[in-house]
């Protein structure tokens, strides 16, 4: 498989370990990619608060670039996935609006015909590669490791733009991946809730309560780590966990929060450094130790 690769601003900024681990996992799987270095930010739903059309134009520009290459887009971020899916949904159902958007792209010689699909790495692995094929690349089963899924709002809502009906595996993609690596799912009600990141700079008290509730609840239920396909959720759940746990629950940050390709990399037997696990704010040492203590097969 080959993709037009759109890592997103955070994987190229505040969460470099996501970018590195994704490339390592893709290479092991033989997934080819061409990075869309000219593409703009999706707007993350924030830019859209000020000017929805501007956001749609930026995203359609990215779709048109991938369309010219004849490749589907792969993203690493729930928010990129959701915002792009919504933009694609809006222009695909309204040809007049698409024509209007295309007018702005003509100066760059771009025109979007509506054929580009956008898939998060997590979905691409399940839908295009297949979990059985993925498992063939694993060198260990993460038996006994309890993983709490945390999706990120934009990976689960709104279901029509995300095409859940046509792709029913999307609803349980994270749990399916955790089971595929041999881990045990720590199910909890907060897994599809908000991480609090969008209001971090607006209402930090509420944002901290969300971080403390989600990480604290998952830990109380026995999770060894939380896994998320969203680097924005990661920034909050990992980066602000020490502050949130102290402020809200009066305890310490004790739940590592890892990215999807890091979980896969652990099952592939990759090292802590190759996956950037040493770059987390909440220590990942214990889960690395757990993974490395498990039997490996060649």
């Amino acid at each position, binding site marked *: 498989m080959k993709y037009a690769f759109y890592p997103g*601003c*955070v994987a*190229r*900024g*505040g*969460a*470099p*370990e996501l970018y590195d681990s994704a490339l390592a996992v893709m290479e092991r799987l033989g997934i080819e990619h061409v990075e869309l*270095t*000219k*593409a*703009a*930010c999706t*707007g*993350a*739903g*924030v*830019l*859209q*608060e*000020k*000017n*929805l*059309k*501007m956001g749609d*134009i*930026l995203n359609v*520009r990215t779709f048109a670039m991938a369309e010219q290459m004849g490749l589907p887009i792969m993203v690493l971020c729930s928010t990129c996935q959701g915002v792009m899916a919504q933009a694609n949904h809006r222009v695909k159902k309204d040809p007049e609006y698409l024509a209007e958007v295309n007018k*702005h*792209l003509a*100066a*760059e010689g771009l025109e979007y015909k509506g054929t580009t699909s956008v898939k998060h790495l997590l979905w691409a692995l399940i839908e295009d590669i297949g979990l059985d094929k993925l498992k063939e690349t694993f060198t260990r089963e993460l038996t006994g490791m309890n993983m709490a899924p945390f999706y990120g*709002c*934009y990976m689960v*809502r*709104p*279901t029509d733009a995300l095409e859940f009906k046509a792709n029913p595996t999307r609803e349980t993609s994270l749990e399916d991946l955790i089971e595929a690596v041999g881990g045990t799912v720590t199910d909890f*009600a907060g897994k599809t*809730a*908000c991480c*609090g990141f*969008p*209001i971090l*700079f*607006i*209402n*930090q*008290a*509420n944002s901290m*309560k*969300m971080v403390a*509730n989600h990480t604290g609840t998952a830990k109380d239920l026995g999770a060894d780590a939380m896994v998320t396909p969203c680097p924005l959720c990661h920034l909050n759940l990992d*980066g*602000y966990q*020490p*502050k949130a746990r102290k402020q809200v629950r009066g305890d310490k940050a004790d739940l590592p929060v890892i990215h999807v390709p890091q979980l896969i990399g652990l099952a592939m037997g990759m090292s802590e450094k190759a996956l950037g696990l*040493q*770059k*987390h*704010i909440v220590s990942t040492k214990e889960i690395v130790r757990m993974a490395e203590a498990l039997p490996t097969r060649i």
Partner: protein
Amino acid sequence: MPDAKQGTKQETMHVNLKVKRYDPADSGGKTWWQEYEVDIHPDSTVLDALIEVREQNDGTLAMRCACRASICGSCGMKVNGSAKLVCKTRAIDVSPNGEQMTIEPMGNQHVVKDLVVSLDTFFAQIKRVEPFLQPDHVPAQGEYIASNASMENLLTSMNCIMCGCCVSDCTVLEVDSNFIGPAALAKAWRFTEDPRDGKRDERLKMLNDEDGGMWDCTRCMKCVDVCPKGVAPMDRIMELREAAIQAGNTNTPGYHHTESFYNSVKKNGRLDETRLAIDSAGWTNLPRLLDLAPIGIAAMRKGKLPPLFPHKAEDHKKVKDLYESVEGESK
């Protein structure tokens, strides 16, 4: 179990319910889960199943319902963790292969008994937005005339039947009972958009300035997902924010956040995370800037502080050209 999807031929469907009970009369108030099994017609709703339970199995089960046609808004409750009008939800869609379904009272509201919640919280939120027309003049003809288009524009919000589903599943209300909530904000939008109303600016200013107002929404889309009537409260909240900014309300961290994001992409083609954090805090707001410092230092020690000078997208000047062509169009 026979395939219940073949509803045309099959006369009954077996339903397995797990219901959250609450009895306020019990000392201190007792909560427990109770399981029921009933046979219903395969076309039946979850409400039909619950009525069957109440009439045939357990007369003590308290629930609220009236119209059975998704117009009165009485039967909101959580089905498998998500708020729904149970009269609009077919049992077979929730449980296509006979899976047990979980029924709980709505969230973020006071439970009176079993599946019945008090709507006091809901209406207290609605009252905060003064949900009535406040015209600023008496028209000469003695009648307020509004165009068809302006009324059609209000249809999303006017479809609200005040069932409380959006309030039930709001992720902000879970942590902050002072948030005005998705239903009240959608209602407020309806009046800011009504050409007959004379208090648009005051309404926008109030919802912009007050604690728990329009900027506290996280954009999680839960309310859009659970609303049974297509009100899409979060979309209305986004429109309120845009209107508030256009009306000159530029005093909130929310405004600075949006503005910084918009300009960062315009300048770099990408998001400048460091700049976004500082802009949102406010360049002269020392306490908030100091608050950011420990996080920045912790990230730097782990080798992952976002670059002080942002990565730019190749061809970022073309992004700026695009911005200018769109902005020029709206002038």
